[in-house]
């Protein structure tokens, strides 16, 4: 079984037509769905949040069959993710794409669970703690993209489930949960 890093690749990754944008609508639909799923799975497993269209992204090529996705195809698949709300373009020229293999709302829910499970209701944590603290290890939160995390926290703040405040040092904010 082929792997990219520690990610197991599906067999169809070796199917050459998978890397050519299919013109026939029905076939293309299937192809797009497959790519969306694969991208999300891969990014989740590798904790990849940002994909640069013009940059190397190992998922977009398959050395063993000597095929890689054209720029056009990449944009098509990523745009499909964006349409579904599973990704966001970070710039107008569509050069960078933020992959939300968990939607921001999902992240917010995840954080609530995390806080509950770890009994962190009344404590104050820094944003960085949430990202890289001991409790986070082994969870999805480990290494989460800072921007995404803050957005999730803000969402919680809007719902009154958390309060964000500036910390002692200028660069780190603190959060107090109020579940």
């Amino acid at each position: 079984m082929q792997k990219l890093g520690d990610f197991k690749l599906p067999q169809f990754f070796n199917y050459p037509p998978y890397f050519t944008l299919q013109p026939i609508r029905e076939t293309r639909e299937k192809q797009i769905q497959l790519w969306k799923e694969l991208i999300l799975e891969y990014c989740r497993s590798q904790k990849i949040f940002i994909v640069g269209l013009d940059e190397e992204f190992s998922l977009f090529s398959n050395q063993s069959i000597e095929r890689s996705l054209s720029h056009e195809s990449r944009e098509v698949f990523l745009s499909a993710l964006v349409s579904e709300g599973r990704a966001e373009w970070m710039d107008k020229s569509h050069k960078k794409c933020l992959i939300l293999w968990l939607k921001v709302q999902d992240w917010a829910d995840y954080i609530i669970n995390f806080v509950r499970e770890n009994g962190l209701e009344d404590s104050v944590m820094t944003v960085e703690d949430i990202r890289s603290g001991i409790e986070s290890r082994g969870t999805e939160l480990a290494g989460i993209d800072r921007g995404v995390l803050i957005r999730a926290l803000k969402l919680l703040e809007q719902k009154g489930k958390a309060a964000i405040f500036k910390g002692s040092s200028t660069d780190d904010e603190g959060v107090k949960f109020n579940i």
Partner: protein
Amino acid sequence: MAASAWLPPVDLTDSGRPVLFPGEVERLFISSIDLQAEENPSLPPLRSGLLTLTSHRLLWINETSRFAHFIPLGSVIHAFPPKKSIKSMFTSPKIRIQVTSDSDGKITSGKGTTSVVITIVMRGGKSDSEAFYGKLWEVLKSRSWEVEEVKGREDVGEIRDSGSVEGTSRVRTAVVGVAGILRKEQEMWESTDKSLQDAFQDLNALMSKAKEMVALAEKMRQKLLSGSAAQANANDEEMGSKQEMQDWLLSVGIVSPVTKESAGALYHQQLSRQLADFVKLPLEKSGGMIALIDVYCLFNRARGTELISPEDLLQACALWEKYEVPAMLRKFDSGVMVIQSKAHSDEEVFARIISLAQKPDALKMGISPSDAALTLGIAPALAKEHLLNAESRGLLCRDVSPDGFRFYVNMFKEFELGNIYLVKDHGLYKAWISAASLSSA
């Protein structure tokens, strides 16, 4: 007797130049010439004059005295070659000519009863009698003075070119020199113009007849049209005569007027059937499908003459819909047009393509249009059409790479969303995996 008595005089211009006859051209000048009638001492000699050999005459002119006489070349019976002897080396060269004359020895242009011998004595030191003799003979031979009556008087101010183009005999006017060439051309234009005019007369007559014909045909057309519109239920007889009329009009070269109503012009009907018959064999040979352009070439080549135009071909094929004909015209999405045998169906071709695409090699590497062409026994361009067609049906999918354009059997259907690692035990996916992994991965 004065010299003027036996030799006709030459008209001179005020400056002493001879007045030449129409078309007369000077050929040679020799000075210091005596003319003597040696055998007839009663004819006084002419001393020391300029001898001018022209195309028509031998002129003798004494510029000082303005005596000028001539010998018409037409009267020259014979010219004796200059003698070569030891004696002649020390004396002036002489050339004798025999000239017709009347009984008095008078030389005239007309016919004489007898002849005299005139000696041309070249007193000038540098005279070349041989050259003169040769020239004289040339001029005598060409007989330029024998001209028929000219159409009109020639203008006097023509360019004379001495010693140039030979005058030709039997010519209406002098045709020597540049003027002659110009005149010849002018005549040619005039005669061409005349014959063109005559031809156009005929053409005008023809065209007026044609106009009548077209008017007649128009009338008939109107009648046919109104007839068919008014009588919806035309009985057989009427239809028969209508058909005859159509045939007749067609044979005259006018397309049938009731094209929209009838099955099309008779010409196209016949052509259509002929084409259907013709196309049977090539269709069989090429697996049931031929590009229209190929049919066009084959058909025309077979016909030899009476070639058909592309429009004719298209119309003929279009008519097949109306008949029981085992062939059909088909247009692919790409615009390629083919003639396909009805017996040959898409499904059948697809079946063959799919079975080809599922062979282990094809599973691993896909198929190119040329692979398909080989297997299907058809041209690569047509094979590509078939492959694209199969793709549009979802049977194949494409793989575009620097290696080229290839098609694989469509396995996207086998892949499961939400369960991307699933491979069923039997089926195409499994077969493909085995085939693909046979190579060193």
